[in-house]
């Protein structure tokens, strides 16, 4: 009989420091510290973090946590995952939607210590620590979700600090309403994705309000893409003589972005325009529409959307806290509707060759059901040449 191969089991029970997630309305969730809230190890040269704040939203995706965490649309927000085990397959660089996460924190029921996947390049916790993202694990995230569902998305504070201190921090956090978060995430200078080939390949200028890498992947399949900063004037865009303009996704409240809407308005009618998420909202605003804040938003990968044209249903990836108010966009046809709550999911002004969808046809994470929209944009540009 061989002896015990190790003095103890594979691992010893991990005891993390206690941490809290405190909402601006005073609701407290108990858990344990993770990510940047962990005390730095001796060899780590990072400052200890005691408190992180942001607007708390929940996301119902079962997989795709890395894409969610690196989606710039989550700037200013703390993300609570409803699926309990997060981090199972680790992180891999090719799944990142941006160079770094822009969210402010993460709340989970159970963080996986040891990931398993042939694609994995490291653990999620390592990733969070590296990027200074605070997190709390061990939380009754279902209670949290039910609370946010009823009370709405609201500011919160995460940390190892005392409850009173966290509550004060949560109350001081402005949230997203009326805040321009695009400036925080947009590229500083233009760049290209996919070289324009000889033979007249389509060319698209994409406004970066917080653009996801998966969108660039999908766009670059139909066109050479030039990504420009959010504040790029319309005449500069037109000066690049593209076949179409793409309005990207991005974080926060579209009502705080009048300066961007103005430029979109100047492009309409000049060339085909396609907007996704925030881009869709800015398009609608430029067409005279108004937007409003949803109670707790749509953040997940299972939202049924009716495509009016075919009467069919597509399962969509969604991530937005604001939406276009019904009936406010004159002259535009509603092309897509959310079957759960009737929220407008797609608009089109054929005469202006402009359309947008509220959800994420590029997926990443989420289902691929609506990828046809990129082809539709390609055809529109071809037809407009």
């Amino acid at each position, binding site marked *: *009989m*061989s002896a*015990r*191969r*190790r003095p*103890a*089991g*594979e*691992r*010893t*029970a991990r005891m993390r420091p206690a941490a809290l997630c405190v909402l601006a309305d005073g609701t407290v*969730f*108990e858990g344990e510290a993770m990510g940047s809230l962990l005390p730095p190890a001796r060899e780590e040269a990072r400052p200890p973090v005691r408190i992180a704040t942001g607007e708390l939203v929940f996301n*119902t*995706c*079962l*997989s*795709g946590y*890395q894409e969610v965490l690196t989606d710039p649309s989550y700037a200013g927000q703390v993300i609570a995952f*409803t*699926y*309990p*085990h997060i981090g*199972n*397959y680790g992180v891999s660089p090719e*799944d990142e939607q941006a160079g770094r996460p822009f969210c402010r924190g993460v709340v989970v*029921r*159970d963080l*996986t*210590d*040891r*990931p*398993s996947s*042939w*694609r994995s390049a490291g653990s999620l916790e390592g990733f969070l620590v590296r990027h200074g993202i605070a997190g709390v694990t061990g939380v*009754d*995230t*279902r*209670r949290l*979700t*039910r609370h946010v*569902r009823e009370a709405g998305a609201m500011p919160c504070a995460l940390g190892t600090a005392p409850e009173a201190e966290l509550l004060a921090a949560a109350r001081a956090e402005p949230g997203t309403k009326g805040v321009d978060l695009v400036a925080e995430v947009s590229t500083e200078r233009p760049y290209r994705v996919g070289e324009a080939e000889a033979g007249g390949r389509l060319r698209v200028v994409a406004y970066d309000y917080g653009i996801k890498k998966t969108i660039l992947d999908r766009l670059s399949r139909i066109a050479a893409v030039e990504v420009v900063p959010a504040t790029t004037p319309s005449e500069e865009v037109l000066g690049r003589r593209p076949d179409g303009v793409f309005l990207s996704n991005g974080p926060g409240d579209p009502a705080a972005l009048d300066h961007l809407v103005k430029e979109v308005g100047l492009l309409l009618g000049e060339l085909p325009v396609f907007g996704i998420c925030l881009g869709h909202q800015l398009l609608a605003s430029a067409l005279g529409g108004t937007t409003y804040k949803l109670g707790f938003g749509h953040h*997940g*990968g*299972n*939202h*049924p959307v*009716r495509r009016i044209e*075919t*009467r*069919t*249903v597509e*399962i969509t990836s969604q991530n937005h806290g604001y939406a276009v108010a019904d009936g406010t966009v004159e002259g535009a046809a509603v092309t897509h509707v959310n*079957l*759960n709550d009737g929220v407008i999911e797609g608009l089109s002004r054929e005469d202006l060759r402009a359309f947008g969808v509220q959800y994420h046809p590029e*997926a990443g*994470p*989420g*289902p*691929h059901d609506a990828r046809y929209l990129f082809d539709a944009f390609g055809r529109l540009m071809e037809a407009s040449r």
Partner: protein
Amino acid sequence: MGRRSDLESILIVGSGPIVIGQACEFDYSGTQACRVLKAEGYRVVLANSNPATIMTDPELADRTYVEPLEVEVLTAIIERERPDALLPTMGGQTALNLATALAEQGVLADFGVELIGATAEAIRTAENRDRFKSAMREIGLGVPASGIAVAPVGIGPAGRERRDVRRGLEEAVRIAEEIGFPVIVRPSFILGGRGTGIAHTPDDFVRLARTGLSASPVGEILVERSIAGWKEFELEVMRDRLDNCVVVCSIENFDPMGVHTGDSVTVAPAQTLSDVEYQKMRDAAFACIRRVGVETGGSNIQFAVDPATGERLVIEMNPRVSRSSALASKATGFPIAKIAARLAVGYTLDEIANDITKATPASFEPAIDYVVTKVPRWAFEKLPGAPDALGTRMQSVGEVMAIGRTFEESLQKALRGLELGRAGLNCDPGERRFDDLPIDQLVEKASVPTPERPFQLESALRRGVGVDELAAATGIDPWFLDRFAGIVAERERLAGLAAGDGADGAGAFAALGRRDWRRAKRFGFSDAQIAYLFGGLEEDARAARLGVGVRPTFKTVDTCAAEFVAETPYHYSTYEDEDEVRPASRPRVVILGSGPNRIGQGVEFDYCCVHASMALREAGFETVMVNCNPETVSTDYDTSDRLYFEPVTEEAVLDVVEAEQGAGPGGVAGIVVALGGQTPLKLAGRLPAELILGTRPAAIDEAEDRERWSALCARLEIPQPAGGTARSLAEAAEIVSRIGFPALLRPSYVLGGRAMEIVYDDEGLALAFGALSLGAEGLLATERPILIDRFLEDAIEVDVDAVRDRTGEVLIGAVMEHVEEAGVHSGDSACVIPPPTLSAETLGVIVGHTCSIAEALSVEGPINVQYAVKQGQVFVIEANPRASRTVPFVAKATGVPLAKVAARVLVGATLAELRLEGLLPPSAAAADAPTPPPRHVSVKEAVLPFDRFPDVDSLLGPEMRSTGEVMGIDRTFGLAFAKSQIAAGNRLPTSGVVFMSLADRDKELGAVVGAAFVELGFSIAATAGTAAHLQATGTEVAMIVAKVGDSAGDPAAAGDRPGDAAHADAVELIEQGRIQLVVNTPRGRGPRADGAYIRRAASANGVPCLTTVAAARAAAAGIADWGRHALQVCSLQEHHAAAAGDVAGSQGTLFDIALGAGPAASGR
């Protein structure tokens, strides 16, 4: 789009008896389909041979045919009912195969019946592996390299058509050599992977390929590249007629490829797929369902993924609801079968509301915020000789599902739910057998998949073996193993706390604070495990835990991860902050379910629980179901007012009862323990006594406790076989010296004849006693004495199901006479209503005894009493104050809803009240009133799993081994018996050779039976001894057959010896197709007796084999009646109406059983 108005009448085909690979998940799906289609206003016609199902309740369909599931029978039903459509996707492989045959034979076209849910073309594409693979390649999906070998049809020795297996084999070998070993062999059109296996060497291969070619109904096998060790996933997909597709659930197998998915521990949702991989798999699944052409409904698609590279292959797809879809429905709250039925009649997903939220449509993909683990339940202990290694052939008989917020919690719950005496993932006395093994041996054992693997893995991890080493040895993903390691680490932490405290008894748990308890519970540890670790009692652990305020919270399964409000109270326990149990307005009755299906406890008890729920809801209670079997109707969230998906254990039940006590007005009115079989009954003593409904737990004990029970019988002057109770072999020998051999030995408190044995001599007694007192797994023989009875040979066994109310009135549900003599477990014996051979006087005595026993035990509710009748004298064998497995059969045979009546009586209703209310027909009179002669005879026949376990002897005995049952109903006993045999898959021949080999004690009756067969035109072949006896009584024997054991050499090799025409032995004759019926009764003990080879050959060659003379006599009667009258189909509704005298006896439609049809049977 909406409901199709061009259809009026729809035929639904069920899946027949419960067999391995096809269990009560199809009762769940079929019941949902019947309900939905009836609610949509269609006329529903149902065909299913299984009387234990809820779907065959007469009120669920307009016409219910409990008839054999054969093409000829369905043709007759179609001719009679003229349905517009046939829905074949609810009854498993059985229904799909039948639908394919009906389409191919032109029956559907002749009668203008449309296949809905799946077209014949789609079924063919999915089911034929070759077509499926080329279809997948066509759309760019990877499939394992493979080839098809077919055994062509030729003419065999007896001039019959036979498959040329040898030619098929040659082709198979060529294919295997091309692909390279290891290869996997899969026979076509076979359910549950029967005949499938992995061959590592050419020798293995030849053996498997030969079996597979013979087993496949089309003589076809697929030989393919083995991808054993890859990760396995399943997606449950739905599609509607507008081509909307959704994935309802993803499932990841804990066991890698190589273990049949039905035998794998599986987890939902998939845990180790990144979104990039998952979405590609989802795309592939949609491409698959579109290409196969399943236009509406659900399908299940299996994938294998190379853990090193992510390469993904499609393995198979089922164009129908399946066991996995039942699991997915329970795991997500998305009722696949119900929605598939609606899609089949024209709805689109977005037109159907999500039942749970009521506010959102069904066209979405459930988001879940918990982890679901399914663990299969095997029955190897009942099948000596079966190897317990798991492979590509499914062997499990049931399964448990558990829900937890983490994998750890759900895994440990599921392991407790199996009811194998384990408290979770080890940390209980059962772990010692793993901990005692040397580590290297343990790791080696764990590398072979067996039911014990999870426990072996835990023990290995706890003793220092690393996750990586175990992952390499087993192919199990390190994610799962790391979770095991987390459980181990937490246990070691808790053990450290235990060691630091000197206190014992109730004080032992003082070291555990609130945070410790909460952590432990969140890792899924039960109170029993903590008690084991701390050396205390479970009840003290519970008290200590409640003392520091740690109690479970109940969360809701809501399809949407709490994004929307859930209307349906479908709960599971976990340890969190917030509890979601809503206040109730009416008193609650908690119904305890029967846990996983196993041999001895199956769908019959689920039927009883579901009926209790229906009856008690109607009576104004809120019903609360507790159960953990995902295949069942009881765990459908629609069945009861509240569903708690929990293991049926003391801790879980007490938690539910406490939660419901606190949920508002009325509290808990009571707990039903009498309808779920032995599982809830065993808990009765540990639950608050004042809440147990019906018969007092003390009376249950009185019936179980041998001495008290004997005293009671003596007081009532009811004869019992002589017997006694032994705690030692000496005591046993003393008893036997008093009562004489043969003797029947059994432990107390068992169901399904667990470990019963009949012994004929001292040696047998010693062996059997030794085996029983070793305390085989699942038994506590040392604590519970062994019962020894004189075994009454050649006695007729009789079962009575009755209900006694609080006023003392007794309703006799039915008196059932067994076909097989006493000594064959009642669950394995065919039985008949009404009793064909008992005199009115004997019946009167039996009814009288039943009433006295019920009275003496103060039974309130159901009671089952078993008797043996020998030479007119009635002996009582045992009484059980609970519903028995025959309750649904009785209800189908008589039309009296016995389970509903029992449930109402449990909550205080009297039989008189129920008669007034109409639940009991006025004709269902009290026991002392005369019963009118019935117009039909009902036979229940057991279905045995021997075709799946070729090395297990098919002999029947006191240990129950059947997995399911079928029912035959017709005008005479013979016809009903013949139908029951056809339904059970034993088509009786009407001509040919009957081979007889009988034990000495059977020879007298055997001669009568032999003469009957000769009269019917059969010729007889017999072994020398049997032949001599037959000839002595004047019966002609055409052929004297060598005993297998008489031949030189090892009898095991008998089948491989070259045939010797003059002196061929029985095995050879069977293999040559020269025997049409085998009657072989046991004479020796042990699996090596020669009869075993004969029975095995019969089983392998599909020759009906009867192992009792009584059954042979019944068969002769059946064949005789069948010769005089054609079989007819007739619905239960018509039978019941005729029996109640409402209408004249209905005339069924004649149908023709092609194989060996009775002479008088006419074609359509």
